[in-house]
């Protein structure tokens, strides 16, 4: 019988890390995610599983500790909130460049700058388009419940190791601070040294064995020809992710005239907006991207051919809306893609979203699809 508990999103991130056999956590406190390390420290997993939990002197130190640990083939993780993730971005680029698996959690708060400690989704671009320098991508997972905060820790590690690429859980202060019912996973043992050598001996620096060449972990390649080959290999990898790893949830989209697209906390708000809109006689559906990279382009293209419009609802000035527009354009559809959102730590209400939908699509609601030729 699985263990059911009432937990905060932040607490469950910590518990899930211990249970999935994470080897090391390196972090630095910042609101609204401090409970992650707080919970880990209170749990003292080093006594239970041998997992290392270390409070670094800064986010820059934490991400470089993660880089080192990931280089040895260990399951390593960090978490922070928006300003801290900015500090980590250089290290993330290095980790992606060195093709190392690790898990990074961003419990977003309102920016720019130190901003506010209230929830936000304004780090979407940073998460899905890179953040640090160079042509790299993170696998980005967007949980919308405390249960998914739990599930995506294991999934994040699985994908990170499958592709030898950093994965990110992109969540926000609301999901971090919220408590919900959660079914915890069974404990998985940490990988032994032999398992790591067997699984990742071709790349991880596990100590030079006599039967193989030394493994070098680096993102520095001075030969441009060779560096271009590296880049081409990375791009192949990202393409494969786009083909194989897209995850989304489509709710009441089959007969929908209008599709609300929202992830994380906003998708929860919009689930109710769908209910309210349908009660008013508007056929509205919700598309909830679970992977933000790879982005669910294909389903958007399909929906673009039969719907009358899209509304991207975000706690930002409108970032994901650009990716939706791109998919709709690629589908050859001319339905309008609108945005509605709040910023600075404010979460929109379900009623606000319905009002915005009626306002922005008043033409389509009255006259049907507007095709701009």
């Amino acid at each position: 019988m699985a263990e059911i508990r009432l937990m905060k999103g932040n607490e469950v991130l910590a518990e899930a890390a211990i249970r999935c056999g994470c080897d090391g956590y390196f972090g630095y406190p910042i609101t609204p995610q401090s409970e992650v390390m707080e919970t880990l420290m209170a749990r003292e997993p080093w006594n239970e599983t041998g997992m290392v939990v270390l409070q670094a002197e800064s986010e820059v130190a934490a991400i470089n500790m993660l880089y080192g640990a990931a280089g040895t083939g260990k399951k390593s993780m960090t978490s922070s909130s928006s300003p801290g993730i900015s500090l980590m971005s250089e290290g993330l680029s290095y980790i992606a460049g060195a093709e190392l698996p690790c898990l990074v959690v961003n419990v977003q708060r309102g920016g720019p700058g130190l901003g506010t400690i209230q929830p936000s989704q304004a780090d979407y671009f940073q998460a899905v388009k890179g953040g640090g320098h160079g042509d790299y991508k993170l696998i980005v997972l967007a949980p919308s419940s405390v249960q998914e905060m739990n599930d995506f820790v294991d999934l994040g590690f699985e994908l990170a190791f499958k592709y030898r690429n950093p994965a990110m859980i992109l969540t926000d202060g609301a999901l971090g601070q919220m408590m919900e019912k959660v079914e915890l996973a069974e404990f998985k043992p940490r990988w032994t040294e032999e398992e790591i050598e067997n699984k990742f001996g071709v790349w991880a620096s596990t100590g030079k064995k006599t039967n193989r060449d030394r493994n070098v972990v680096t993102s520095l390649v001075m030969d441009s020809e060779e560096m271009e080959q590296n880049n081409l290999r990375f791009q192949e990898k990202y393409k494969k992710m786009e083909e194989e790893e897209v995850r989304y949830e489509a709710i009441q989209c089959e007969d929908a005239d209008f599709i609300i697209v929202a992830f994380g906390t906003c998708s929860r708000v919009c689930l109710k907006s769908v209910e309210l809109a349908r009660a008013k006689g508007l056929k509205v559906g919700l598309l909830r991207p679970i992977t933000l990279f790879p982005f669910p382009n294909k389903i958007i293209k399909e929906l673009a051919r039969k719907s009358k419009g899209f509304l991207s609802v975000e706690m930002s000035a409108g970032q994901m809306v650009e990716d939706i527009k791109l998919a709709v354009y690629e589908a050859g559809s001319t339905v309008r893609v609108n945005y509605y959102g709040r910023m600075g730590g404010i979460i929109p209400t379900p009623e606000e979203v319905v009002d915005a939908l009626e306002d922005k699509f008043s033409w389509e609601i009255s006259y049907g699809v507007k095709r701009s030729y």
Partner: protein
Amino acid sequence: MTEEMIIAGFGGQGVLSMGKILAYSGIMEDKEVTWFPSYGPEMRGGTANVTVILSDTRISSPIVKHFDTAIILNQQSLDKFQDSVKPGGTLLYDPNGIIHPPERTDINIYKVDATVTAVEMGNPKVFNMIVFGSYLKVRPILTLDNVEKGLEKSLPVRYHKLIPLNIQAIKKGQEIVESVLEV
């Protein structure tokens, strides 16, 4: 069944912990639960509130504009949330420190003198459990058995000896709640 409620008062009154016990009791009844606090640079004496949602089905928005029930423990919260109760919904408040009582005429209003009763019981800390008891009386959506299990789950083991006192306070709250207006 979906019950969307707000519990609001001063920091230190046990607003968040009452919500947590409610949520855990809901889990004991196999319900889906969401507990969403106002968080920020909060402190004792400042305002504190938490949205609690119990439902038989998947819970959508943690952001709620119109509540089924509001449990109000100070004047600021009454002023702020009185108008957020759905018509036909329920407002439960403690009259202690309330200068302007609720004015709505389209909702059910109940009051519980929990501050005074807690002092009479010799333990001001059980204040929130008296209020919780009153809530259970006017909105009987959870059984006392499951509330007791919820208490066991949400209190650390070292406080389990206090569960009988909490149950006693809940029962007291069930007894003393007064109806002000029923629609």
